[in-house]
């Protein structure tokens, strides 16, 4: 079976073709770089995403700070991750890379700050 995808690993958006045998990936074609191959394989077996959002900051120059999952998390867990950020408030100062929530929603991945707030 052949699955058509658009690669999201970078802005080029290569059209990928993933050849499957049952639930095993036989080949990925259409990619321009190795990242595309990795994306294609993952997307048909265990699709993942980076999630970006915001949490509140107290006592800082801004009231919000942007955050992200440090690594990609399973696509099916996106809303669990987002909901885990509800009502989270961290004190200033915040530095890029500070861990906001460790092991968010049981994904094994940390939520980290992506902006400095003094």
């Amino acid at each position, binding site marked *: 079976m052949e699955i058509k995808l658009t690669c*999201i*690993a970078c802005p080029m*958006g290569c*059209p990928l073709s993933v050849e499957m045998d049952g639930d095993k990936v036989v080949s990925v074609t259409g990619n321009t770089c190795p990242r595309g191959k990795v994306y294609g394989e993952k997307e048909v077996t265990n699709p993942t995403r980076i999630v*970006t959002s*915001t949490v509140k900051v107290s006592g800082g120059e801004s009231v*919000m700070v942007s955050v*992200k999952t440090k690594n990609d998390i399973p696509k099916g867990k996106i809303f669990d991750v987002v909901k885990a950020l509800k009502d989270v408030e961290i004190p200033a100062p915040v530095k*890029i890379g500070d861990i906001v929530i460790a092991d968010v929603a049981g994904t094994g991945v940390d939520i980290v700050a992506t*902006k400095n707030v003094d």
Partner: protein
Amino acid sequence: MKAYDIVIIGGGPAGLAAAAAAKRSGIDSILILERDRELGGILNQCIHNGFGLHTFKEELTGPEYASRFIDQVEELGIEYKLNTMVMDISPNKVVTAMNREEGLYEIQAKAIVLAMGCRERSRGALNIPGYRPAGIYSAGTAQRLVNMEGFMPGRTCVILGSGDIGLIMARRMTFEGAKVKVVAELMPYSGGLKRNIVQCLDDYGIPLKLSHTVVDIKGKERLEGITLAQVDNKGKPIPGTEEFYECDTLLLSVGLIPENELSNGMGVAMNPITSGPIVNESLETNIEGVFACGNVLHVHDLVDFVSEEAAAAGRNAAAYVKDGAAANVKEVITLKGVDGVRYTVPSTINVDRMADQLIVRFRVGGVYKNCYVSTYFDDERVLRRKRPVVAPGEMEEVKLSKEQLLKYPDLKTITIKIEEA
């Protein structure tokens, strides 16, 4: 009057990269003027990831990408002023700026880098009929409200325009608890990156309706709903295809316009296609020593390319300060985009002043599949690159080398065009 070698108008990604490059090229007297309360420009509200793959070989969010350049500016000890509005720039490079502390004051610059960025087209620019209630925002305004201030502009949302900001905001609004009903796009293709359609719309089952537009707006105080209709190949709504969507929010992502009021005021010549200055190989405008880069020059899709372009502008401004204007300007080569290529940046090349390699950037006017991007030196085709697809939403480039150009001493015109494969 204060005096600086280089004054950079805008502390967003373009201004920061230009400043860092100018400093590294040996100029110490540099001032960045930024109207917002922090450096980083629009990147501060672009909290999604996808920035920096080209520049840093890793995937960063907007604020992270900005912080890399802000750190460089800090480490290089470059002076900047926040909350400072540039009111006017005279043709002889006197910058009039204003802020709370210093009031209205003038700065004499030897060189100026224009890096003011762009603004969003408004509802009025599309002339969408209907009422004028609250609940209609440009995607960027909504992005600022949600990402920087934590406010939800609404609960149920329709997005007009499939530019990247619109696509990104469809996902953002969904994450923050809003229902995004549909993204409508006037053109038969999306104006955004393909990856954003996949990861911002497809992932969340948000439909993208191509060749559709908003034909009516309902609600006198707060938006109550909008009517979408399909459009024909001239962009005219087709009667009978109207469909009403109940929503309290309409986000518009219908194009960006370079913010060139200051450039116009000082007499910089403009390209009507890009709405940005006409520049030469040095990214210098028709006014000697005035350079432009980033979205004020032409709207980019990728900040990485803004940084690259701005660094070149910064280096060129530094060279201008050190060496003065190009002596003995011989005849320049004209660049032209035809047959599907809408414009080129730059518009002219003086081979003596170009770097070893020059990246010519351009956009196409429609979607072309399995085509060639071809470059002609006068009538001779010298470069041809096969492309599976080119589209208006994605900026293209052609690289020219100095070595190659030197082989054509009588070259008058370089033409870039799309050819069928």
